[in-house]
């Protein structure tokens, strides 16, 4: 396997965006990191991540992409863990775990895909090149064995998990609202603006090539992406409403916007729609820009007052027209206000969903079942509009809090008002340039944004000759969707945020962050850190100790060491046992006597006494035996003499 790179327009565009973002981020970092220790580590890994990210965007096949993807994931760990506070390390741990697990699952997908390609196409030069893969799924049921489409599906799902984890798609978005707020702000901007897009890039490759509309014979894949997208979009939006920490709001907003992009991709695949995919592409580009600016502004606030809580930073932006304008541009852009580029991209996605609704209605009315029924698509459309409204609502919440309202502490407000020197000209310049792009793109959308889509059409297989291709950006129909969203947003802001999420006299934003809804603490951590290891450890310990236990058992059983005869120090076995028994008895007797209150003498060592008795017995026995035998000998001798005497006297 060799590395291969491709330089098509879409890849070059994103490489360019990445470079631009890194430049802005580095300019901000230079000021932001001024008072930090261990700057070297930060800048080294920022550059490392840059090259890895470039590698991801310019990779020519999935193998190369995977290699750079892993390098990027691991290098960006340093950003999250950078300041080494407890919560940073915890968030970084989650980030690393998600990266590693996601990476390994993706690797499994790559293995399966590689195997499938080899089976269908034999030994070809670059098996994991996406253009090869485009043919794979469509031909798999003809060329390979019957199980092959299932294997390609399994590969696709594995890779979707891997890319989805990086993109922050539900239900693996858990790391994102934790990791982004704790990283230094310039790094958060990159994490949120560009690293999540690498995941989207992967999902685009899967959806537009392997499971592409032109080569598919089922809608399952598109439906999965669409459902994931809708869940992510809604969940992120709701979480962002609850948050009272500026960076956390922005991170949740990222989750939600990624959901918008995925919804667009899913919609486009489901009804072969060119509008939704164009919208997704433009929203990707737009979101990179918005998040770069928004996180940078959060960074500017943090480097001045070292606080992120809305109640603390409230009123910081007053009398700072430049910061105000920059933030407003991005906030309105992401909220989809007409005239800015966010409006165009969201409208395109919405148009795509509307098309899908009409398409589904048409199919259903002619009796054809669709994978998502008409009602479901209608619900999706409304979820889309409400999520769009939420975007406006939480952006208004941030904007009004930071730039319009006064801080409840009027002394602090006076200090904030005096802050003139809140960022150096370089940071200011970089942010102004980034912010100007938003209205420029929005106002010249007919040329610029259409140009972007035209440029990337080949890479993303957008059919530029299609009927609906980017015709009406500003028709009343489109504006209606946008206006509904804006109306919903205003209702949510004034109806819910101002009333339910602030205390009664509007002096404080209440932290309603739903801790119990945290999937990580409720499910992932207990399962991965405790439940699975516990079960596996029990099993593995059993396997581990099997042979050792067997050996121990054998040594206690048939290979038992024969017991060594112990030599008694004195006496023999009989006296020893007798002595022990007597000793016990006497001890019992003494205890009874003691219990009765009688005085008892010294205890006697019966073993010793009996042994001594035995010794003396043995001694006297020996004496006796010896004397007896001597006597017997003399007796015998006398007897012999007597007999001899008798013989002599009688014979002669």
């Amino acid at each position, binding site marked *: 396997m060799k590395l291969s790179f491709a330089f098509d327009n879409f890849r070059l565009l994103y490489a360019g965006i990445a470079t631009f973002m890194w430049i802005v981020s580095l300019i901000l970092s230079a000021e932001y990191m001024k008072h930090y220790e261990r700057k070297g580590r930060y800048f080294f890994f920022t550059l490392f991540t840059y090259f890895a990210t470039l590698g991801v965007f310019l990779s020519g096949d999935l193998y190369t992409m995977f290699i750079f993807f*892993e390098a990027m994931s691991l290098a960006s760990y340093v950003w999250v863990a950078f300041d*080494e506070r407890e919560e940073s390390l915890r968030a970084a741990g989650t980030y690393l775990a998600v990266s590693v697990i996601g990476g390994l699952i993706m690797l499994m997908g790559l293995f399966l895909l*590689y195997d499938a390609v080899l089976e269908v196409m034999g030994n070809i030069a670059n098996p994991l090149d996406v253009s090869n893969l485009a043919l794979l799924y469509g031909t798999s049921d003809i060329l390979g064995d019957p199980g092959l489409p299932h294997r390609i599906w399994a590969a696709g799902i594995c890779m979707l998990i891997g890319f989805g984890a990086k993109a922050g798609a539900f239900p693996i978005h858990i790391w994102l609202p934790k990791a982004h707020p704790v990283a230094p702000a310039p790094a958060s901007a990159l994490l949120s603006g560009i690293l999540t897009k690498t995941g989207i890039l992967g999902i685009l490759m899967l959806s537009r090539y392997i499971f592409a509309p032109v080569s598919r014979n089922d809608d399952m894949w598109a439906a999965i992406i669409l459902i994931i997208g809708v869940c992510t979009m809604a969940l992120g939006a709701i979480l962002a409403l609850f948050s009272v920490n500026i960076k956390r709001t922005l991170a949740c907003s990222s989750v939600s916007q990624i959901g918008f992009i995925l919804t667009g991709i899913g919609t486009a695949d489901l009804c072969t729609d060119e509008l939704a995919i164009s919208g997704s592409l433009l929203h990707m580009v737009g979101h990179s820009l918005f998040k770069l600016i928004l996180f940078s502004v959060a960074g500017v606030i943090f480097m001045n007052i070292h606080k992120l809580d809305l109640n603390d930073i409230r009123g910081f932006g007053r009398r700072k027209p430049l910061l105000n304008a920059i933030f407003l541009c991005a906030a309105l852009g992401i909220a989809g206000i007409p005239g800015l580029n966010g409006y165009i991209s969201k409208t395109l996605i919405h148009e795509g969903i509307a098309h899908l609704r009409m398409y589904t209605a048409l199919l259903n009315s002619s009796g054809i079942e669709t994978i998502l029924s008409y009602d479901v698509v209608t619900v999706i459309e409304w979820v889309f509009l409400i999520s769009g409204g939420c975007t406006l609502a939480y952006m208004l919440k941030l904007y009004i809090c930071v730039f319009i309202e006064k801080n409840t502490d009027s002394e602090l407000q006076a200090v904030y008002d005096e802050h003139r020197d809140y960022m150096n000209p370089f940071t200011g310049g970089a942010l102004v340039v980034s912010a100007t792009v938003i209205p420029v793109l929005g106002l010249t959308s007919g040329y610029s944004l259409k140009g972007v889509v035209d440029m990337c059409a080949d890479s993303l297989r957008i059919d530029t000759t299609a009927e609906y291709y980017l015709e009406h950006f500003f028709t009343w129909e489109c504006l209606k969707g946008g206006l509904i969203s804006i109306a919903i947003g205003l209702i949510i802001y004034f109806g819910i945020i101002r009333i339910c999420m602030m205390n009664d006299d509007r002096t404080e934003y209440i932290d309603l962050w739903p801790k119990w809804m945290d999937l990580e603490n409720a499910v992932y951590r207990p399962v991965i850190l405790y439940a699975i290891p516990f079960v596996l*450890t029990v099993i593995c310990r059993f396997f581990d100790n099997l042979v050792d236990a067997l050996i121990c058992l054998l040594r206690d059983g048939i290979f038992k060491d024969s017991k060594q005869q112990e030599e008694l120090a004195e006496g023999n076995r009989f006296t020893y046992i007798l002595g022990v028994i007597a000793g016990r008895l006497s001890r019992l007797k003494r205890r009874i006597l003691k219990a009765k209150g009688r005085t008892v003498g010294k205890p006697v060592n019966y073993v010793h006494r009996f042994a001594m008795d035995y010794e003396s017995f043995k001694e006297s026995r020996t004496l006796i035996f010896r004397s007896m035998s001597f006597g017997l000998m003399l007796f015998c001798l006398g007897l012999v003499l007597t007999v001899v005497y008798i013989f002599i006297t009688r014979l002669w």
Partner: protein
Amino acid sequence: MKLLTVLPLQFHMDPLGAIFAVLTLVIFISSGVFSLDYMKEEKNKRSFAVFFVLSMFTELALCAASNLVTFYLCYELLTVMSMPLVIHERSAEAKMAALKYLFFSLFGAYGALFGIYNLARFASSLDFVLGGNLGSDVFAANKGLLLAVAMAMILGFGVKAGMWPMHAWLPTAHPIAPSPASAALSAVIVKAGVLGIIRSLWYVYGADKLRGTWVQDVFMILALITVLMGSMLAFMEPVLKKRLAYSTVSQVSYILFGLAVSFGQSCSVNDTGLKYASDALTGAILHVLAHGFIKAALFLIAGAIIHHTGATRVEDMRGIGLKMPITMTCYTIVSLGLIGIPPTGGFISKWYLATGALASDIPVFEYLGPAILLVSALLTAGYLLQLMIIGFFPGMAFRQSVQDKELKAEPGMLMTVPIATLTLLSLLMGLFPEPVIELIRQVFI
């Protein structure tokens, strides 16, 4: 070279032996250099040095052996020569560990010996010839017995490779040896078992005969159990060197799994008609090298940490990255390699092992194998990255509690250079794998 006529002792260095021999030399030399500093204050230096060098030469002879009898002799000799390294401390624990090592190894060697006797009876010769000396008619006539023979040899040589169920000596014996010896034991001497299996099955028996037999199934199951068990126990193990020993148990079985799936598929043919070793077999040999370099580096790093801070448990090593930045940077790189994260040697070997397993089309195992390899990789990440994290990111509380001055404890050149060399080798294998892969692919033709 033929030494005797009665008992034919023959030596001939073929490419496979050369690969193992190069690994042996690199690791023994770098561990040897490391030990110059490490062993300075130890007792029994002389006996350590003598047996260390003897082990190296025995291993080299093992690599060069060109028939099974010679191989067996060197194999037994290697056990005996490396035992004094385990017993080095002369403590009761070390003695028990060494005895365990000796008994397990001897038990395994007898299993192999049973195989050798039977092969001597059935095969035309015991010389190493790729493809084997066992005629297929003889095999067909005595299939039952010969399959049992193959199993006995796998189990017997598997003892040295730390394959379940006879792995228990490894986590006992490796950590108790001094670190340079642990490095040599874990990185090279266990590979003698791998070489034993390759030599006996591919060069005498003919591994193609085992395709689809129960021997292959059992071998794969044992290897996979070992892979999972080793990493799981390493994950739960708090003592660094013991953790690394369990990791060896797991990683060597990656190699064994690669061997098991390539029975009957030693070679593939590419579109130009060139034969080359199959992916699984290539991956297995690549992993022999990658794991060798990485595990040696890891044990040397553990040794450097023990030597300079006295810490043996992972949780006592908080902030170690600030004390020994060079050593711990090497640790991070080789850890990523062992997990199988690009661009290190471990990733390349794992890629070949997994794609090879998938290409083998063995039912169930073609998917189960790669899946277990990845679960094990995840556990590897769990047990290796923990030290990296607490080493480089000890937390604010730790940073405030220590003074900067007491931080520096970087080991000297004699320690860092071998570690860095091994790290570099593992990294180079990942960055420029083609020459090595080409070399390995020529071996099994």
